């Protein structure tokens, strides 16, 4: 299996605080890797370093064989990211936002790409509406369309279904499952929804206090820790970590 992403001994220190401590992992091509951990455990910092938004204190991120620090611009063409903490300009219509990002990512046939994504993500009925006027479910689908505008080979999803109703959440999960299979995309999924992670991810990394405290397939982790589901594994690992501290 080809490695799409290699993370080697990655660390980030803010003054004396170590946000991420020498973590290493890989993401295979066409794999969805889950990244689980409590708030503030270093997930966002890790993703930010993988996207080149944050300079690592130590270690490196290699994407498609190239170091992100030395090839940031060329690699960003192949990557994209969504997070509930960042938004698209609210005063621009959905179509205008997609045109802007199509241009920024150098997409050749922007109209065709927008049409394709509109159909797949059911954006047609509100494509000309201002993005700020949409419901959170609609905004989420627009963010996903923006994240797919450049047909990325690596996608970073930070809580992609947070605050969505069950129907929309299920639609988004099914869509992610489908495109990762069809487009052979590598995805890093950070989520607090354990059912989502179990459904989508082949492998899972458990993170706490800036380190990876366990990893494996969801079923192996459940079996290894003698629990009934991934949520119980998550709680056990985090409580153990608190007690150790």
């Amino acid at each position, binding site marked *: 299996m080809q490695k799409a992403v290699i993370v080697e001994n990655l660390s980030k220190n803010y003054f004396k605080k170590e946000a991420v401590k020498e973590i290493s992992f890989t993401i295979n091509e066409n794999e969805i890797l889950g990244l689980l951990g409590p708030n503030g455990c270093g997930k966002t910092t890790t993703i930010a370093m993988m*996207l080149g938004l944050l300079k690592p204190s130590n270690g490196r991120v290699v994407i498609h064989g190239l170091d992100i620090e030395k090839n940031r611009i060329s690699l960003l063409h192949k990557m994209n990211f969504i997070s509930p903490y*960042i938004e*698209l300009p609210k005063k621009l*219509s959905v179509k205008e936002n997609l045109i802007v990002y199509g241009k920024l990512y*150098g997409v050749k046939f922007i109209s065709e790409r927008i049409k394709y994504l509109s159909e797949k993500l059911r954006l047609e009925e509100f494509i000309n509406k201002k993005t700020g006027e949409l419901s959170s479910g609609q905004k989420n689908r627009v963010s996903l369309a923006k994240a797919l505008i450049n047909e990325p080979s690596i996608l970073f999803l930070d809580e992609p279904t947070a605050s969505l109703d069950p129907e929309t959440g299920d639609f988004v999960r099914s869509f992610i499952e489908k495109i990762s299979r069809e487009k052979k995309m590598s995805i890093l999924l950070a989520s607090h929804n354990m059912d989502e992670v179990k459904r989508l991810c082949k492998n899972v990394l458990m993170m706490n206090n800036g380190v990876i405290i366990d990893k494996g397939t969801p079923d192996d982790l459940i079996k290894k820790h003698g629990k009934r589901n991934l949520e119980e594994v998550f709680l056990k690992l985090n409580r153990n970590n608190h007690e150790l501290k």
Partner: protein
Amino acid sequence: MSLNRIIGLFLRHFFLIKSSLPRILDLIYWPTIQIILWGFISKFFTAYSDYYNNTVGVILTCAILYDFLFRSSISFNMLFLEEIWSRNFTNLFIAPMRISEIITALVGTALIRTLIGLVPAILITSPLFGISILNLGIPLFFLFLSLYIFGITLGLFVSSGLLRYGPAFENIAWSSLFLLAPLGCIYYPIEILPDFFQNVARGLPLVYIFEEARSILVNQVVNYSNIKNAFLLNAIYLFVGISLFYYSFSQARKKGSLINIGE
């Protein structure tokens, strides 16, 4: 550099402006009010001042030039602030845009924003006060260009602060030009300033630009050495501004301010 990406960032702001009449009116409103206010003040001076009695509208012309500088700098800062306010900052920096492309796109967009505001204000000066800024002749182009470069440079300084320190730097964005205005000798000759401040003011291109505007309007003399000095100083400040922007981006990547800016 990719023209496509530069156009992309330009479109982001063009779409924003074209879809909002209040935004367009806001762009036009302040320069127009400024010009009308200074128009009446200059009328008063024309009637009662010996210094200005030969040249109608010297203050008004300087007010227009100063407003052009103010608008270009603020426009540049506003483009940056819009990204922070809309929480779009991270999206922008994970797009494959080079810093040079971001600067180029903002420079072009800021010019259009500035002109939207200033052209109507310039047009009303003629019917209202019987004054045309075009009286400055060909040097007007150089004065505008020099002011625009300095405005953009100030925008780069402030945006570097925004990049590094986030929205906390916003107040500096608004006040930066007010700080420089007294030293820029916009409405009076440099000799008015105390000696120490004269020395400081000579380090700013503004002094030479406004000195030149007055020289043309009051004495009908074009002094290209003023224009040359202004461009030389502009080149130095622009170089420092661009370098600072690159440095701030690098620092923002180290300190993590690109991730949580806007929060």
